[in-house]
């Protein structure tokens, strides 16, 4: 273990080379590496086990959880059906309160808006709270590159995001960005910043982080946040956090910028009672998170806190194209991470194997939907289709059915390999013709004879190696059921 490089060094080279969220061709290869990394495996297992247990307890304690889930689904369904109207409504509400609203078609649009704002405000420090939408559009990297002249310092203030940023790493989970690291690794990274050796215990590390981050809140020219929910009727942005950084980022700096995916809208303030409960209980197993923050516009007259300027960036980035399609339900996601925690594939590989901003089942669904099938060909196949994700989803997204539809879409777009096309065409032909099916069975029984050893098929290279390399394969029975039936069993 001593010679092993810490996680953040081990992976970054690989990711830098490929670019986050660009090529995910190699889920299988990444997954293969991940399952052999015991340290990673233990960290992921620890987090997911704990989260699943907490979630189960929290939801079981809520007698009307199934009804809430149903209501959440209906509200989202209604929101998406009228999204244009709700977008207009939220924009009007925010503007009426003195905020500014910008519709960003894609990441480039959003980054340009923030960059121009930073230039106009002569900003030096941007303090950010956790936001998957800004991860999705790689806001930090793009700002640093495209607006290099401004000399901006972009400071993540969510503890996990900050550590990831320090390690030049990316979040591997929607809710627990650095769950792939253990305490020792975190201590190593923070010791690098402290210039002294910090002990690997949570209290000391948190105390150090608090001291460093506090400076950022106080010096930041712009505070940036994501949004867990945006209320159309009032223009309220709701963020839920456990660290309090969200509250500081949205109220201390003179300018507050929100980047919100357009699907985060909910129609009414009262709808929050449904979603906030579901999010906290499904995500972390809490009844409510420590902070549930509501921001409605900039600081008003006579108000004591809040930013002088407030900007709401409504990010599309491919979302509106899903409206009215068979994939629309993917937009209902509230980013609680429950589907990641219960996913047996995620539990083996962790999030980085997905090679995309969003990992786990929801990542496997929305990455190809937002970026195109070519960009994320492997992801819909990164599932055993066990359905644990759909069962866990607090808003009832049929995730594994969407994965199936995505697989089908790939086939229809001609993205499946020729070998597969041939294989399944032959499969269909054999299965449609009982005689051919019988002959194939007989041929298989003859063909397997030289391969038999101790009652199993011997490991041989070839099409079966994917199975036989790690598992014994039973031979076909000597007689088919049909033959036994004919003999009169």
């Amino acid at each position, binding site marked *: 273990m001593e010679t092993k490089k810490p996680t953040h060094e081990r992976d970054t080279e690989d990711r830098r080379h490929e670019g986050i969220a660009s090529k995910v061709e190699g*889920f*299988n290869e990444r*997954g*293969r590496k991940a*399952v*052999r990394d015991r340290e990673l495996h233990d960290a992921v297992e620890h987090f997911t086990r704990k989260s699943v247990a907490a979630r189960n307890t929290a939801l079981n304690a809520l007698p009307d959880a199934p009804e809430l889930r149903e209501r959440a689904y209906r509200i989202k369904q209604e929101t998406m059906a009228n999204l244009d109207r709700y977008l207009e409504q939220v924009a009007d509400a925010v503007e009426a309160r003195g905020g500014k609203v910008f519709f960003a078609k894609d990441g480039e649009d959003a980054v340009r808006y923030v960059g121009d704002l930073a230039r106009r405000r002569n900003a030096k420090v941007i303090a950010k709270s956790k936001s998957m939408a800004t991860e999705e559009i790689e806001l930090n990297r793009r700002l640093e590159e495209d607006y290099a002249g401004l000399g901006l310092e972009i400071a993540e203030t969510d503890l996990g995001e900050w550590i990831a940023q320090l390690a030049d790493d990316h979040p591997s989970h929607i809710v627990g960005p650095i769950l792939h690291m253990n305490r020792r690794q975190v201590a190593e990274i923070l010791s690098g910043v402290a210039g002294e050796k910090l002990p690997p215990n949570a209290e000391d590390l948190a105390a150090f982080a608090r001291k460093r981050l506090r400076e950022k809140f106080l010096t930041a020219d712009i505070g940036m946040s994501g949004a867990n929910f945006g209320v159309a009727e009032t223009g309220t942005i709701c963020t839920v956090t456990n660290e309090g950084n969200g509250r500081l980022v949205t109220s201390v700096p003179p300018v507050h910028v929100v980047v919100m995916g357009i699907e985060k809208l909910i129609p009414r303030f009262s709808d929050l009672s449904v979603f906030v409960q579901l999010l906290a209980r499904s995500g972390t197993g809490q009844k409510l998170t420590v902070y549930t923050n509501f921001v409605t516009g900039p600081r008003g007259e006579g108000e004591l806190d809040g930013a002088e300027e407030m900007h709401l960036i409504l990010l599309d980035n491919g979302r509106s194209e899903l409206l009215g399609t068979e994939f629309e339900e993917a937009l209902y996601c509230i980013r609680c991470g429950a589907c990641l925690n219960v996913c*047996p*594939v995620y*539990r*083996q*590989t962790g999030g980085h194997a997905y090679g995309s901003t969003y990992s786990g089942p929801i990542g496997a669904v929305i990455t190809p939907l937002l970026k195109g099938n070519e960009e994320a060909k492997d992801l*819909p*196949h*990164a*599932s*055993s*289709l*066990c*359905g*644990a994700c*759909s*069962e866990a989803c607090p808003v009832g997204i049929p995730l594994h*059915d969407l994965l*199936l539809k*995505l*697989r*089908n*879409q*790939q*086939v229809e777009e001609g993205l*499946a390999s020729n070998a*597969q*096309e041939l294989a*399944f*065409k032959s*499969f*269909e032909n*054999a*299965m*449609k013709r*009982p005689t051919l*099916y019988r002959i194939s069975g007989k041929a298989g029984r003859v063909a397997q004879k030289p391969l038999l050893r101790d009652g*199993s098929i011997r490991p041989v290279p070839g099409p079966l190696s*994917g*199975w036989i*390399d*790690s*598992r*014994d*394969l*039973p031979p076909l029975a000597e007689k088919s*059921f*049909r033959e036994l*039936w*004919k003999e009169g*069993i």
Partner: protein
Amino acid sequence: MRILRRLGVEVIYPEDQTCCGQPAFNSGFFDEARGVARHFLSVFERERFDYIVCPSGSCTAMLSHYYPFIFKEMLEERERSEALGHRVREFSDFLVNVLGVKDLGVRYEGRAAFHTGCHQRRELGILEEPRELLSNVEGLELLEWENDELCCGFGGTFAVKMPDISTAMADEKIKALEKSGADTLISGDSSCLMHLEGRLKRTGHDTRVYHLAQILDSDEGKVG
């Protein structure tokens, strides 16, 4: 077959049946799966019967749940598949809920863990039936095991497409199985069992692996 007959069920086996088409469906080849499904529908529609009994939660779910799914836009076939789907019953569901049988009067010596296949668990919701049947098997001690809701990692073509991850998933199940102290693994799905047994054998375990029907069949010589 023997169990059903013993319980007074008249069994017919349409000889032209092949596969339900799930391998193609799971891989996204819906057209090919529809081709196989049409064959299935026509073979079974030729026969007169009350129920289709299927010794696999996975195949049952394909017929009852996913045939209507792939024929969603094709009204005539959707109706046909729905009509057929209503008559498909997974083996343990059929015994317990249709025949009302919970005790087969059989014996098996062993400490067993039962694996509920994912389709059986989530699409069909058949959780208690196999356990009820097994709890009445004399000599069989049914054990609880950790994370029993987790998928075994088979997942059809997933097992071959992503063998390392699939195998790691099997290893997690096997770890839980070891911890439970079971000497026998039982399931209602042969495909999960083929995967788990293959891995058990490869890793030098001598766990006995049986389909539920094998345990419930007292004539089956090798069991017990």
